[in-house]
């Protein structure tokens, strides 16, 4: 059973200019004192086409986490525009917030992000080279997509069912197709089954 439940994520400073840092106010609850820190990451999906354009905007350790309800603001710089394919600069993409404990990801919160020009002129005739200073980032805050994974919260590996949830090591994953757990892949628009995981 998950020891950490994310209760809410508030998207702050939204919509905002593209260059503004991302700010998420995360409220979570922990059932018992965690001996180790949680690691939170913000991942910006540069292009829908390929994961190679994913950028980890930042990763923070959060701790110590005693039992109780906690909140913090996770702020991370805007993505490096140099790493975003020009064709994908404008339009819809995704920003992900993930949390791992002992190296195992147990929650993934995704938001659609719409980047568009505020100036109608630019909207009509977007420049060939994206003008990031004019872009506005709008996170679809009302529709978070939450996927929860069962992980092994205790230190010792006593559950084999969790093994599939452990992040594959980098060199293996490069050889394998994306690690999709059977049954965890929802059809479009449907919540994954385990997203109802609640306290």
């Amino acid at each position, binding site marked *: 059973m998950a020891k950490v439940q994310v209760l809410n994520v508030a998207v702050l400073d939204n919509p905002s200019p593209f260059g503004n840092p991302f700010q998420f106010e995360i409220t979570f609850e922990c059932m018992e004192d965690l001996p180790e820190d949680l*690691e939170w990451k913000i991942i910006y999906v540069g292009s829908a086409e390929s994961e190679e354009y994913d950028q980890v905007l930042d990763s923070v350790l959060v701790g110590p986490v*005693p039992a109780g309800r906690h909140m913090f603001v996770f702020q991370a710089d805007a993505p490096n525009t140099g790493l975003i394919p020009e064709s994908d600069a404008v339009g819809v993409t995704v920003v992900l917030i993930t949390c791992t404990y002992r190296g195992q990801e147990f929650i993934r919160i995704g938001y659609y992000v719409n980047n568009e020009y505020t100036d109608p002129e630019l909207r009509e005739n977007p420049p060939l080279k994206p003008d990031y200073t004019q872009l506005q980032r709008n996170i679809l805050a009302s529709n978070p997509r939450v996927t929860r994974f069962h992980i092994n919260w205790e230190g010792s590996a006593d559950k084999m069912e969790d093994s599939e949830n452990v992040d594959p090591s980098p060199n293996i994953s490069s050889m394998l197709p994306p690690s999709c757990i059977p049954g965890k892949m929802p059809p479009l628009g449907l919540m994954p089954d385990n997203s109802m995981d609640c306290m």
Partner: protein
Amino acid sequence: QSLTKPRKKEHCKPIFSVDIHPDGTKFATGGQGEDSGKVMIWNMAPVLREEDEKNENIPKMLCQMDNHLACVNCVRWSNNGLYLASGGDDKLVMVWKRAAFIGPSTVFGSSSKLANVEQWRCVTILRNHTGDVMDVAWSPHDVWLASCSVDNTIVIWNARKFPEMVTCLRGHTGLVKGLTWDPVGKYIASQADDHSLKVWRTVDWQMDANITKPFSECGGTTHVLRLSWSPDGQYLVSAHAMNNSGPTAQIVERDGWKTNMDFVGHRKAVTVVKFNPKIFKKKQKNGSSPKPGCPYCCCAVGSKDRSLSVWLTSLKRPLVVIHDLFDKSIMDISWIIWTLTGLGMLVCSMDGTVAYLDFSLDELGDPLSEEEKNSIHQNIYGKSLAITSTEAQLSTTIIENPEMLKYQQERQNSAQTNIGPGCAGPESSAPKLNSVMNGESLEDIRKNLLKKQVETRTADGRRRITPLCIAQLDTGDFSPALFNSAPILPSGSSMSNQLTSQLSSDSSPGQASSLGLRPSHDPMLTSPPASSIAKGLEDNKDGYKLRASFYPCLLLTSASKIEPMKALDSRFTERSKATPGVTAAISSTAGLTPLDRPKDGISALKDIKSKEDTSSDSEDKMATINKNLSFSKRKPELLMDGGEVVEKRKKGRPRKEKMAAPIDMTVSYIPVGRCVCVKVSMEPSVFLEVENEVSVVAGSKLSQLRCSRDGRDWNTLLPSSVVTAAGSSDVLAVACQDRMLSVFSSCGRRLLPAIQLATPVSAVHCSSHFVMVLTAGATLSVWSVGAILPKNLLFVPLGADSTVSQSLLTQQGVPVIGLSNGKSYCFSSSLETWTLIADKGDSLVQCADFRSCLSTHDAPASSGPLAVMQGRNLNAGRLASRLSSTPHHLQQSMTLAFLENQLASALTLQSAQEYRYWLLIYARFLVNEGSEYRLRELCKELLGPVHKSASTAWEPTTLGLRKRELLREVLPVIVENLRFQRLFTEYQDQLELLRNK
């Protein structure tokens, strides 16, 4: 009319278990969720009353828990109603407890905006079974919890000390699928697939009987075999048994475990038997002569044949049989005792529905009261299960206020859990509610969170955020304003009112649970019934099954931009692979490093402590330094440490329980030429190291002071030998032999110019930003370093031949001294005088008897300065028992005086926690003793003026505690004496009024 309105609720997936809360306000269901087990808690009111069902403001579902990894086979409320136990295919038993209500919350990210309007938290997970858990059962009085499993075992858990296991009952050779406790607690019975029913003794947990005959013919399997014991203890009724190749429910008599009778009639295996917990007697008809009919029990039997029968032990034939109630097998039955019309029953089925059946008391007879039931038990078994509480006196007073009633019930509930010695209970291990927000609203916190939150860098340069704790785990406390804890009152209106006001509009469970109507199957009647039953079933024909879909179809919310989203969608659910940047492997180790240090700190501390213990505690600190020096010289062998003699001493600062609390320590009487290292603060960890006479420059001896804080070191040189040093997380103070006091910031900056003291220093204390110095000349000074407010020089109120034996400085900068004559004083800056806070020879302390007022919920405030000065084992009331000959009024006055002294002392010491602690004891004492005037004055003071006016000098807070919050805590205490219900209502109403303002 014996049966009305069968209604159904839907889980969609099979429901394996249903159980109604003892107070009848809610019920739990357990079954299969989407990809996990599911426990849901529902409001009972909409089931009982049609108007409540239609009222959208009344929530149907209260809470759902998806924590079981696999199907939930059984849910059971504890007898006191505080806990819910659930067992499932994931081999786990989880015990749930209601947590404080923070507001309707949805499951984050769930697009069904179905709000959890109650919070139930898993307080313990019981792991021992190696197979699916099939049934769980609480023993009478909730002493034990039993669980049985397909691993062929039954585990008995200590329900007062989860997750402790009492025993594991082995003997079944097949899957154990049902459990029931003997109502007097002498036995537990289990039924298994091995064609046996076994009865186990609770005395030695050995098998008392193994009944196999009625089950030998049993073929096939049923999912559950829920057997039941009659409330009078006389009969045990099994599930699936066979008699003449017909399925039966076997009646086993307690006397000799005889198996002569059975309930016959079902066409398929019996899955569940459930006795009504009440014993009944025949209804006295008007006009007929009152003849004392034999009491009887009522039992419901559910079967795989989808039908349900209800039997009375006084009748040969079933009272009622309902066929085809469901589409699939019946899985569980639960009785509700008090409804508006009589008795009701919830029945759940594999088909994912729950039906509610309503019986009138005309059919069943009059239930006996608990007293009558207890006297029956007493007659039969010679011992009573009566819970001796205030029930008798309660019943004579009418409760006027529903809030009051609720408090009463909660109190009784908690009283029941606390019965018996050594009931550590889950709640004592569960952290208590402690508002961490200090009166600051969540909004305020949120506004400044980014600026305020503590962010550090770990050794490898990673960002580390300390999250702001906005609420500690609060499994123990119940919000006072919970709608469905309100008992079902005959009027029904008050509850509905509460409901509407409670449910804020942002969540609308009604909308999500769009109710669809579906005509029920016409129930068929086959068994020969009494005429009234036929009538009841006729009525039933136009009844409806209500189907509520709680899983509304999820619609694509952002319908536009489908194509790119499709590609993006997979990203939501896929786990992160090796993303550029930091890999997960690093994080776990990086997270570890900063945490290792405090552990070291603790061991260091223990080290110090153990060494300290070797020296006598009651050393006179006013004694000259020489004496101490010689003392340390006497035992160098003991303290030999790397060739250096180390003496470490900890002064009387109370050791806080949590690591997070700063611990301030003092190094004193440092021997010449020696090196001393001590940790002065835990969080952040600060180590202080002093070495005298490091070098001799131009004839003067230099001493070195080294400080290590969070890995950052600094050091400084002092021109004279250091005599004593102290530090807190903010300041460090060092006193030298030349009577010079130096104060440094935690980074080593000199904060104050060197202070020349008149007489040699005897003790130095630091606490947050306060520095206190006690000199041999019996003067005491406190400096507040942050504000550089020199506090006046105080002369310690030494008596003729007393010396200072203890000194400390509280977190708030209040100096406290203990004298050798047993008196302790603290300096009240507002009164500008020393005030007596403790006197070991005080006769009031010896005689005050307030033990009955000690709250079971509050941990003893043993950590505050008051407790430290008065001694941890406050021997208050120790003499009280010996003084029982003392007239009650005398003792009462003494206790009252003592408690008021304690309150005043806590106030002067500015010890908020202790103030609250004693305030609650004081209030409880006033309530117990019925001192209305004082109680009223106390409430008045805490409430303050309801209307603002300029003339009032009322402060809304005491020591940072909000007085009205304190009042809110005092009110439940007031309820304990029904005499004060008017007082309670008065202040409750005013508080409500103020809250709404």
